[in-house]
């Protein structure tokens, strides 16, 4: 089949239809005008709830909020879950137990996988659409957005992106995990009723200093790399260039309201 039959260069525009932030300590967001949700554990039925971690509750709260705003059918919605450490507290508990030779809890073990939240989200929404779980240290939000963007190019429709990290034990990689933070975006190739559009994330030169408060917040809450984009969604009109990470090569997207 000739490669030319595929429109490689004509990318489809991507639109934001819903967003939500879950941050149990909103004080850390002082100075930003961002609405935050408290962790809503009732979103997870009691029978599953006792098995879920703060990570899962945090991410599910944000995901639910974004889907509510977008008024979207979650039973067919593909999703991307992006997190640096995922189920870090479960992993920590298991690592503490291993040297003792005590038997592990089977539930703890299967809840230690990186796609635990992704799995519970699928079960909660009875959704058989593909779901992926990614990680990219400082670039986790940027790569999550890139993954969602490429999926939309190949399968037009809607997709959910959730980016989150919970509180971490401070002997692992301080100051990472001093603040728990999750955000979610519903992205779509459909323009009508959308809040704004974004372009393909790309590495570009940094032209002016990145915001100090943001840089320091991201050091303790990697998912807060999303704040400039969230800030634009809630507070900006017009168009602007948005940084998506704070270290190394900086990824940007161009954001525009209508």
């Amino acid at each position: 089949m000739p490669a030319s039959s595929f429109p490689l260069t004509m990318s489809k525009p991507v639109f934001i239809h819903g967003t939500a932030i879950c941050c149990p300590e909103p004080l850390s967001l002082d100075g930003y005008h961002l609405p935050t949700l408290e962790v809503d554990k009732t979103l997870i039925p009691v029978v599953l709830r006792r098995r879920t971690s703060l990570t899962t509750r945090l991410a599910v709260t944000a995901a639910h909020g974004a889907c509510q705003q977008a008024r979207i059918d979650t039973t067919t919605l593909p999703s991307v879950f992006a997190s640096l450490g995922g189920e870090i507290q479960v992993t920590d508990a298991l690592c503490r137990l291993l040297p003792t030779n005590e038997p592990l809890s089977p539930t703890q073990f299967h809840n230690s996988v990186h796609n635990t939240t992704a799995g519970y989200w699928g079960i909660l929404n009875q959704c058989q659409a593909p779901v992926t779980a990614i990680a990219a240290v400082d670039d986790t939000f940027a790569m999550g957005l890139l993954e969602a963007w490429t999926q939309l190019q190949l399968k037009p429709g809607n997709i959910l992106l959730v980016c989150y990290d919970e509180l971490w034990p401070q002997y692992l990689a301080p100051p990472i995990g001093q603040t728990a933070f999750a955000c979610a975006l519903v992205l779509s190739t459909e323009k009508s009723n959308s809040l704004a559009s974004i372009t393909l994330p790309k590495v570009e030169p940094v032209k002016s200093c990145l915001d100090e408060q943001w840089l320091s917040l991201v050091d303790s809450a990697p998912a807060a790399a999303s704040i400039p984009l969230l800030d634009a969604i809630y507070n900006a009109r017009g168009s602007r260039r948005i940084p998506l990470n704070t270290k190394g090569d900086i990824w940007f997207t161009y954001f525009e309201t209508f």
Partner: protein
Amino acid sequence: MKQSSSIEPVAITAYSTVNSCGFGNDALLKALLANQSTLTTLKLFELPFPTYVGEIKKPLPEISPALERYQSRNARVALAALNVAEDGLRAAIEAAKSRYGKQRIGVVIGTSTSGIYETESAYAAFLEHHKMPDDFHFITRHAYQATARFLQLELDLKGPCYAISTACSSSAKAIATGQRLIASGVCDAVLAGGADTLCRLTLYGFKSLELIAAQHCQPMDKDRSGINIGEAAALVLLEKNTAHTRPPLLLAVGESSDAHHMSSPHPDGLGAALAMTGGLQLAGIDAVHVDYLNLHATATKINDQVESQAVYRVLGDQVPCSGTKGITGHTLGAAGALETIIALLALKYQFIPGTAGLQQTADECRCQVIKNPVPNQSLSIAMSNSFGFGGNNASVIVSVNHE
């Protein structure tokens, strides 16, 4: 072949693997042709219960001093795969760099536990001395992206770099992401695949779920009693299909979710069937075009039963299938890429691999499971199934063109 596919095929221009069969594709091919288990008792650390594992015994290459912070068994196994000279993976990546530029080459690596083996040792010291050892570097050794980032730095690549971690489907999903990055024009080439290495967490964890076989595993057998865990790196270089040469092609990867349970598959195999049919649709082919299926076939009671139902429903009983985890062990996050390479070897050398460990096929199994390897001169398209915790499913479809 029928209609247009809904994703552009990409070329697989080089691939290599390191696993319990040895270093490189030839070592794996030899074990496949002999249908020879390479599972042994565990040497890496002591285990308080009996089982067999697919352990890499040859010494692993050292990480260069400049990248010392990335030192982990996982990164070293990945480096070993990169360095197998006969497989030409590193040379093909260098050629791709000069062809496309390093900014245009991505790295997407699947893993379930990354460098947790080193972290486990660090915790033993931590519990004794109440502080982590000085050489503990969580982000560069254990974080999910550590091995992907190590490969990117080792190869001086500058494109997108991330880990996919969806348990036992991780590296099949990494291959799916690699194809999308190329098909959407973001990258011209992607180093994709997976690496997972033996560690206490997965051995004790699967033991807690009562899924570890004390003996050699028996995929699809009526007496199967669980899995043997293995370790591997399996890497593939995906490139734009420029059609100048005739490399094998990645046609598509079907993906789905069970939406049923975190560690048990949907009892009717709905998610597994959806991944296979989704892959066929994306590839633009019908079930009759599939010449060989490498099963997920972990050798647990429920997984094999559910998979065989799903395979029968989607592919019928005429497609030759085999499960190769009796040879390599279940390499978890690396299994999808390892078994994609097994499918590529089957196509390249025109044979159907066997199912080592299988003696008497389970009564409920209605798909055509092959016990011993057989030559077959008409193989063009092969599929490989991978299903993980969280009900996360992926079916990779590859092809060769013999014209």
